[in-house]
């Protein structure tokens, strides 16, 4: 009995120490490249009937890192013009860059873009819709005001918005709820 006890104690200590010797010590952990990060949003505005194409771009290459997104607007917009607009969303932390549009299109009922302009410089109309007939907003038209001026255009992507809440299908974000996946503010001039 006594030897048994001693044996079991020795065994126990052995287990402890072998258990302590680590198995994956020398191996470095592998890096994680965030899959869901959207680093870049590009809105391409093509004037109906010809003219200069305008791009609005926000790019945040360090994701949730400390660097603020870089916002570029290629040129001023023209007054009284209808632009056909489309959005491209990318994750540029991966190489080649991952196109996020597909994910949004697959889950179109859970996403909606909202557009807002200050100083009444532009109005927006949805051109694409989800399976339930509610707006999505990867495609839209932008109609500029008749007078020159300047202001901002804000593009917001909400995840799991309440699409049937009052005003939401008309593009009013007030009652949309959900979470913001993207919010970009572009300073534009109209001439």
């Amino acid at each position, binding site marked *: 009995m006594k030897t048994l006890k001693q044996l079991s*104690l020795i065994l126990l200590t052995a287990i*402890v120490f072998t258990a302590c010797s680590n198995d994956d010590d020398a191996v470095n952990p592998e890096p*994680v490249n*965030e899959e869901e990060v959207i680093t870049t949003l590009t809105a391409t505005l093509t004037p109906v009937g010809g003219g200069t194409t305008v791009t609005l771009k926000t790019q945040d290459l360090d994701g949730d890192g400390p*660097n603020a997104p870089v916002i570029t607007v290629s040129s001023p917009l023209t007054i009284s013009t209808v632009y056909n607009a489309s959005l491209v969303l990318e994750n540029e932390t991966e190489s080649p860059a991952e196109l996020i549009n597909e994910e949004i299109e697959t*889950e179109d009922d859970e996403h909606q873009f909202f557009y807002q302009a200050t100083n009444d410089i532009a109005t927006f109309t949805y051109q694409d819709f989800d399976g339930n007939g509610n707006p999505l907003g990867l495609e839209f038209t932008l109609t500029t005001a008749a007078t020159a001026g300047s202001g901002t255009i804000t593009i917001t992507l909400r995840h799991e918005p309440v699409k049937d809440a009052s005003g939401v299908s008309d593009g009013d974000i007030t009652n949309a709820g959900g*979470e*913001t*996946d993207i*919010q970009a503010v572009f300073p534009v001039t109209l001439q």
Partner: protein
Amino acid sequence: MKYYIMVLCCCVFSWSQGQDCNSTLSGEVLDFHDGTPIINAVIFIENLNTYTTTDVNGTFSINDLCNNQIVIEVSHLACETKSLDVNIDGDTFLKINLEHHIEELNEVNVKGASGAKLTKTSQETLLKSEAIERYSSLSLGDAIKQISGVSSINTGNTIVKPVINGLHSSRIIVMTNGVRLQDQEWGIEHAPNVDLNTAGSISVIKGANALAYGGDAIGGVIVLKPSKISLKDSLYGKTIISGQTNGRGYNLNTSLTKTYKKGWYIGAQASTKRFGDFETPDYILTNTGLESKGFSINGGFKTFEKGFNVYYSYLDNNIGILRASHIGNIEDLVNAINNQQPLVIDDFSYDINAPKQEVTHQVLKTEFYKRFKSFGQLDVQYDYQNNQRFEYDIRVGDDRDKPAVDLTLKTHTLKTSLKLDAKDNIIYKFGVNAGYQNNFANPSTGVRRLIPDYDRYDLGVFAISDLRINNNINLDFGMRYDFVQIDAKKFYITSRWNERGYNSDFSDIIIDEVGTQLLTNPVFNYHNLSASVGISYQLNEFSSFMFNYGLSNRAPNPSELFSDGLHHSAARIELGDLRLEQETSNRVSGTYNYSNKAITLNIEAFYNHINDYIFIEPTGTEQTIRGAFPVWSYNQTNAALFGLDISANYNFNDQWNLNNKSAFIKGRDVSQNQALIDMPSFKTVNSIGYSNKKWLDFNAELQSELVLRQNDYPNNNFEVFIPTTQEMVLVDVSTPPPTYHLLHLQGDVTLDLSKNTNLNIGLNMTNIFNTNYRENLNRLRYFADDLGRNIMLQLKLNY
């Protein structure tokens, strides 16, 4: 064959004929611990029905015994009775050791008398099984909140972290069946993963004076102990079933224990609970359900001199987190704060969807002890813990069902202690602990690691002494040294690395560069010293004083060092700091206790000065593609916490009693001369109780809980530009919610079903008036009200 039997018979006959009945049995009876003689011990020879007692030297003798095997029983008023088989062969001398410490006996084997406190001079409160069973369906944090000075910091209503005198998380040690719980206690939304139903008693020790458990418990120690094992042949168990209206769920807990007189025992316990969405008075808290399953087995051998114990426990918790608390950016946060109701309210459901946590915790423990005569007791324990934590965020596409956090924490601990209790008035305890911990963050989540992979090594040694000067004065001293090493492998985004200024201070720890990320290998060593001195003085029959001083150091935890990134449910970016130093706490406390037949009064005061107190505070905003986020960074300051905890009870007569528990605490940031963040507000709980043994042992209690608004808080509000409305708005993350008052009612009766079986039926109603309220230390207070009325029926069967 016949021949042999005849020979045998003859032999026996001749032997019994020839046996000599002039033998003398003499001996001495000594105290096991210190070897001093025990006077007036009774020596009883069962088969001869004769007895004698020991003299002043502890010696005895019995004459005219036949040479034979006899059974003697040795008993003494203050000792455990001992039975011995003695072979008399001529004059025989015996040395018998008796266990002479009644209070230790209680610890060893008296079931039901588990009232022994773990410390003599600390601010300690003990909850016994009845007080714990009432909270069977809730969490550890809820149960110990009945102690004055203990509150909780919550993430919703099922993630409850205990707060002792204003301190929480890794400033508190939770011990379960002798094992220090290692379950990523650093995170604010990580509740201790322990099933309350495994505990027979819970001790809460305020401050770091229980050095045997660890030196870094600046806040305190919570010790869960299993029910005592009795040394008799017995089979007993307990089943608790409860159902409740809020959450529309049930809780089931059952346990069975088999014990043997020789010391062997085995027990098993299992519990399961399930709740759906909880409710406020006005709406359903969508996705706040809980599903929990657990079991434990406990077996071993236990006598006064030696014993061992093997214990295994498994607990799996699946916890939903309020859907409306998952938000996108600062604008969503502002909307959530300004909206009086959560933005997502669905119909009641038992479904637990993302965001949710799934945590599995396993503990395996083996323990062995042996007592040595006139010396003391040696204890050796090894334990292994495995904590697997998944946190599911709301994700899109292929990642929808993937956890966003996948951490496996494995901990091995070996500890030995030696208790020298040979002298009646002084006890020494020495101990050595060694531990190894490995945290693995699974990269397959596709989300940058919140907590990096790391190895942690620790080694601790301590010495404690308990000194009884006389019947009225107890003194104790303790010293402890701990060495802690954290060896981590952490990826930093290069821009963050530079922004934090690590490129100038820590460039030597970079071991690899992968794209935009740097792999670093921070190795930190910490030397922690702790000490404790305490004195208790019994003034007279009714009142006593205690005074205590404790010094302790706590090394920063992995989240304080390494946090780096977006924390969704709080809509903030949280940043750790590699430069953090240890915290040093100096805590002095005094206790006055008065008790007579009618009145019990306990007043505890404390002052805790913490140098380099680590806390998280808002430090600005950062712009990301999702919009603006507030940044909260871990920081250090010098802090002072002081307060008063009062508990009082007055018995009018055998039936009626009044009870009060109040706690007042102030936390000051001494360096910045402002209030400390996240301090519990003043709380007073008053109750009137009625009990009547004649009415089926009826008990009832009406409780009033008053929590005043926290008026002393740092103003961390900030303004931010909201693009959609084109205006600057104030983000009010600081203003505490208003004062609230709740009424609770509980009652129970006990039916005796048979001699050994009884059924206790309890009815519990909380928040009787369905009052709307929000609690300052609930992380989800920005998003929703706290719980409305709940009616719970509990059946407790003891057998």
